[in-house]
């Protein structure tokens, strides 16, 4: 039988606020255990939540970016379950009337574009962490993360392969960083995916029973976990079994999923409106203010790069991987509007490659767009060759001569020899010294030409403009 895999994702994005969603404790990552867990976060008896403006505003931003409806009023609800990293015994989340409803995200897999619909995005608080190192057979609980604002973004089951799921997750990852609501740091858990996976016979309409897979903290794990889980479900079904709806944990070391014992109460969270929090109203004015703050979105830039700049769709997608990269590219183009493709090639090639190699972000790039543009200008006006430009770029990266392309070119004497008389002089010298090759060429041995070009370039220490050398040499040999 042919099987179809059906995937929906729930992505938890940590919102980049200074303070927690319901308390004034810091959200900074990496502090000593429990030093950022205040009275509200550790749920002392009697404490109460007060909602963070910044968290709501980021949710609105997201909603507008995906073309969703912003609900007003929006309601906070309690999700009740016991777990040591959940201090109140309930998580403040949203159930009915989430802040963001609907919307969609466009993804691209290979040549195919696809729209993934969003069900909703709701605000909630993060839990703490259980540390499983052994403390005399016990676990340690760190509540620093408890109360960190999360936007849980829930998609419709619109994806049909792990590749689509990864493309969706990546698009979302780009978007939340792009609009500045989440730092996207997956190692630190700022962007976490859960996948709902089910399978059904191809062509069937009814969805199969799904399993939710948790703990997918990289795109690679997301892909592998979905592939494993789909295989597992197909095997069970092909053996005549049935799937039990449950929450499963992906174990990266074993590359498999297994039942999560701690989620046994998952069928009965006893959601009800949190009596400590009142209905959240989001005014039209607030939405309009946020709309103005919203930057040009990745999709709009992509289209502009293709239509206005004439770049390929692929190049455009690479350049909008982050807003910083796209901005860098555009700032370079601004200085060199006639050479868009050259700018794109350099940003995607030399600049990105070097950043990757050094493991730094484009924001820390030592070569500014203006500097890069200066360098690219010298390629386009023939001052230097593409090959020397790479040496100049390296020197700029090191900060030599204040990173000025012209100063480096001058200091290294990399300026091309483009003066006809100077080149003629060089050629005359080489021809005089290599009369045998001249004779060979004139007697029909074409190869001798290349050998002569090589000798001329060598004599110019690589600085002679190769095009001019070709033209003048040909002329001389015909004399």
């Amino acid at each position, binding site marked *: 039988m042919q099987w179809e895999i059906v995937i929906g994702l729930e992505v938890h994005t940590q919102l980049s606020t200074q303070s927690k969603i319901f308390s004034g404790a810091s959200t900074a990552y990496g502090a000593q255990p429990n030093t950022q867990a205040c009275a509200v976060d550790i749920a002392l008896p009697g404490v109460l939540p007060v*909602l963070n403006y910044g968290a709501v505003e980021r949710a609105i931003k997201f909603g507008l970016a995906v073309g969703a409806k912003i609900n007003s009023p929006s309601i906070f609800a309690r999700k009740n379950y016991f777990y040591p990293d959940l201090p109140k015994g309930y998580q403040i989340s949203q159930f009915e009337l989430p802040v963001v409803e609907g919307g969609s995200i466009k993804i691209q897999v290979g040549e195919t574009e696809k729209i993934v619909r969003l069900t909703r995005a709701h605000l909630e608080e993060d839990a703490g962490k259980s540390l499983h190192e052994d403390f005399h057979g016990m*676990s340690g609980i760190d509540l620093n993360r408890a109360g960190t604002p999360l936007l849980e973004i829930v998609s419709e089951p619109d994806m049909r392969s792990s590749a689509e799921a990864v493309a969706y997750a990546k698009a979302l990852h780009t978007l939340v960083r792009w609009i500045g609501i989440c730092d996207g740091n997956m190692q630190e858990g700022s962007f976490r995916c859960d996948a709902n996976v089910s399978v059904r016979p191809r062509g069937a309409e009814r969805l199969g029973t799904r399993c939710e897979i948790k703990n997918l903290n990289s795109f690679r794990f997301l892909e592998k976990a979905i592939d494993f889980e789909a295989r597992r479900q197909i095997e069970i079904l092909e053996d005549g079994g049935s799937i039990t709806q449950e929450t499963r944990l992906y174990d990266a070391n074993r590359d498999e999923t297994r039942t999560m014992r701690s989620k046994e109460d998952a069928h009965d969270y006893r959601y009800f409106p949190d009596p400590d929090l009142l209905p959240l109203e989001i005014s039209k004015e607030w939405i309009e203010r946020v709309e103005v703050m919203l930057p040009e979105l990745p999709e709009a830039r992509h289209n502009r790069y293709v239509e206005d700049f004439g770049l390929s769709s692929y190049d455009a997608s690479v350049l909008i991987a982050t807003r910083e990269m796209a901005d860098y590219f555009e700032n370079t183009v601004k200085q060199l509007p006639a050479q868009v493709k050259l700018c794109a090639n350099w940003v995607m090639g030399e600049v990105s490659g070097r950043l990757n190699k050094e493991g730094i972000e484009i924001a820390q790039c030592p070569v500014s767009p203006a500097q890069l543009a200066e360098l690219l200008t010298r390629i386009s006006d023939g001052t230097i060759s593409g090959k020397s430009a790479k040496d100049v770029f390296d020197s700029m990266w090191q900060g030599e001569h204040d990173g000025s392309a012209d100063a480096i070119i001058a200091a290294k004497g990399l300026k091309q020899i483009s003066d006809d008389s100077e080149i003629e002089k060089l050629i005359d010298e080489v021809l005089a010294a290599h009369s045998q090759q001249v004779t060979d060429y004139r007697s029909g041995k074409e190869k001798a030409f290349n050998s002569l070009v090589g000798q001329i370039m060598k004599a110019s220490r690589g600085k002679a403009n190769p095009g001019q050398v070709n033209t003048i040499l040909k002329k001389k040999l015909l004399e």
Partner: protein
Amino acid sequence: MTLSLDDVKRVANLARIEISEDEAQQALMQLSGIFDLIEQMQTVDTADIEPMSHAQDMIQRLREDVVTESDQHMLFQSIAPQVEAGLYLVPKVIE
């Protein structure tokens, strides 16, 4: 709706309260009495009535996004049942 012994046990488990067979029987009796009282609610048609979650018709006030709390974990952990290295200790957590 009548409450069953299984309901009592299921609910006790959800609430993390241990309940013996005898206690469950007794609880069933008492809770059934209370639910008889509560059932009066079902006699009223509430189709068009908006539920009331709060005693006041107000909207949520928002906090400015600023850090106002400082580290007090020493004080907080001085009353904790078991701590080590700044962590609250609990029996092994199995995910």
